[in-house]
């Protein structure tokens, strides 16, 4: 073979490898997207057509499936409840885990590591283990069937992981900065509030976004704690809707697709923070 032929065959082999890579990547992308797109599109059909031709576009677009949900008060109420729980839980997690994380990252005292291990012990077992007594505790505190009964446990269970994540981030601030602040008369609390938190905004955002996603998707806890329909969060609403309209797949899929819009929108905006939070938690955990 001449040099040119060798080059040409190497190039065509590289081309084939690239094509194979694309084929694999695109097939997996389709496997992810087809169920989601099918759900959204079938939400526009009549139920008969969903079951007859799930793969095709609607012959006539039934906007009323989506319209009925958008006009129903319960959908918006569930959206509101989910949003409230999500915001409160992530605010609580950010505040309550950044404080211990600051102590564990920046202060030296005897027993520090012991306390830190105590706080992160919660990472080693699943929430389901605590759920029965937790329910009894919430009942005693009159928190069953209230959004606080969801928010507080979500914050509590978010603490171990996020203290761990934030300690890692907080430890990266150079000691000189802390010394300079101390010379300027800044107390540890002042340093925490005026220097560390503003500097650590990306880390706090990562923790907040991570907590938001987990809180938004939480099902087990709301399922136990919330009894009255007016307090339902979206996952409970979806479950209820499926129970109610189980055989009317067009409407169920329309409901699910609508509930996906905020999730996917949020994901596209906050993907970077989410991944930063997850990898920081995972790598340091």
């Amino acid at each position, binding site marked *: 073979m001449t040099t040119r032929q060798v080059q040409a065959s190497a190039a065509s082999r590289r081309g084939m490898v690239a094509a194979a890579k*694309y084929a694999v990547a695109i097939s997996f992308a389709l496997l992810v997207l087809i169920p989601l797109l099918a759900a959204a599109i079938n939400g526009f059909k009549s139920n008969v057509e969903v*079951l007859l031709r799930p793969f095709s576009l609607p012959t006539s677009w039934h906007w009323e499936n989506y319209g009925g949900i958008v006009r129903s008060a319960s959908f918006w109420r569930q959206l509101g409840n989910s949003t409230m729980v999500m915001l409160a839980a992530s605010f609580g997690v950010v505040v309550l885990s950044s*404080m211990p994380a600051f102590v564990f990252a920046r*202060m030296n005292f005897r027993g520090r590591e012991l306390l830190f291990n105590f706080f992160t012990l919660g990472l080693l077992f699943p929430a389901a283990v605590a759920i029965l*007594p937790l329910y009894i505790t919430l009942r005693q505190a009159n928190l069953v069937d209230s959004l606080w009964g969801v928010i507080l446990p979500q914050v509590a269970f978010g*603490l171990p992981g996020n203290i761990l994540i934030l300690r890692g981030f907080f430890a990266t601030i150079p000691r000189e900065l802390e010394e300079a602040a101390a010379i300027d008369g800044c107390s540890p609390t002042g340093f925490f509030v005026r220097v560390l938190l503003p500097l650590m905004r990306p880390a706090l955002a990562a923790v907040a976004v991570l907590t938001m996603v987990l809180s938004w998707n939480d099902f087990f806890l709301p399922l136990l704690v919330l009894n009255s329909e007016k307090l339902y969060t*979206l996952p409970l609403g979806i479950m209820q809707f499926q129970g109610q309209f189980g055989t009317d*797949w067009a409407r169920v899929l329309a409901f*699910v697709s609508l509930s996906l819009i905020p999730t996917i929108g949020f994901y596209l905006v906050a993907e970077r923070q*989410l991944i930063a939070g997850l990898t920081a938690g995972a790598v340091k955990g």
Partner: protein
Amino acid sequence: MLWSRVATIAGFLMPAALLYIGLVLLPVIQAVYYSFFRWNGLGPLQSFIGTANYARVLGDKVFRGALAHNLTILVLSLIIQLPIALGLALLVRHNLRGRAVFRTIFFLPYVLSQVVTGVIWNFVYLPQGGLISRLYQAIVPGATPPAFLAHPNTVLAALFVVITWKFFGFHMMLYTAGLQNIPAELEEAAQIDGCGRLQTLRYITVPLLGSTVRLTIYLSVLGSLQFFDLIWIMTTGGPVNASETMATYLYKFGFLRFQLGYGSAVAVIMFVLCFGFSLIYQRLVMRRDFE
């Protein structure tokens, strides 16, 4: 000076400690306590029955089945889901145009709730008119498509497909982060020394990814031991307990039948499994990954 330091430390730790002890640690200890009683959750705890709950849990075929299902999901995750995730992470690593888009798509299912995932996949698996049954009929005309979720022999495999769909992107993302920490020089050096692409992958890249692999195994095991949402939405543990997991079993007995003592015994067994695994795995396997 010293006192103000102590006060600062205490003040910073106290709010978190209260919530954490009250709602995370104390319940675990209470679960151990409740597990020695027969209790319906109301009235005083008085019928102490020792370890009878444990004997009953461990003797119950349904619980043993649930544990077996958790372990099946665990093994399948390790041998199928994680390799897929690693393969895709390597695939979308570099030299692939549009890799950011692929990554965003692959990670998308992780962001969706398990409830949404479960409902959508109920539709995918729908025996009459679902996506899979339509595909099946297109390939084998005239045949009745199998009802994967309704059959005890296929339900676990069908659920595992959904679990993989939901979580492979999460592990892929961790591998991607791990790959970014591998210095390019090492792989270049190997190629200069005459390693082919696959050899470089086998002898340099994957071994250097060791700590990430060990971590994903850890997370995958803990996750597999506590599956609830997806299974509850899709099958509620059925048909005839064929997809029961420890968590669905716990929920059925603890909350639907109000056997809190018995449910607590289940919780303690889950706790022992997860905690025991965590300690042993961290000591033996992950120790070298911590500085």
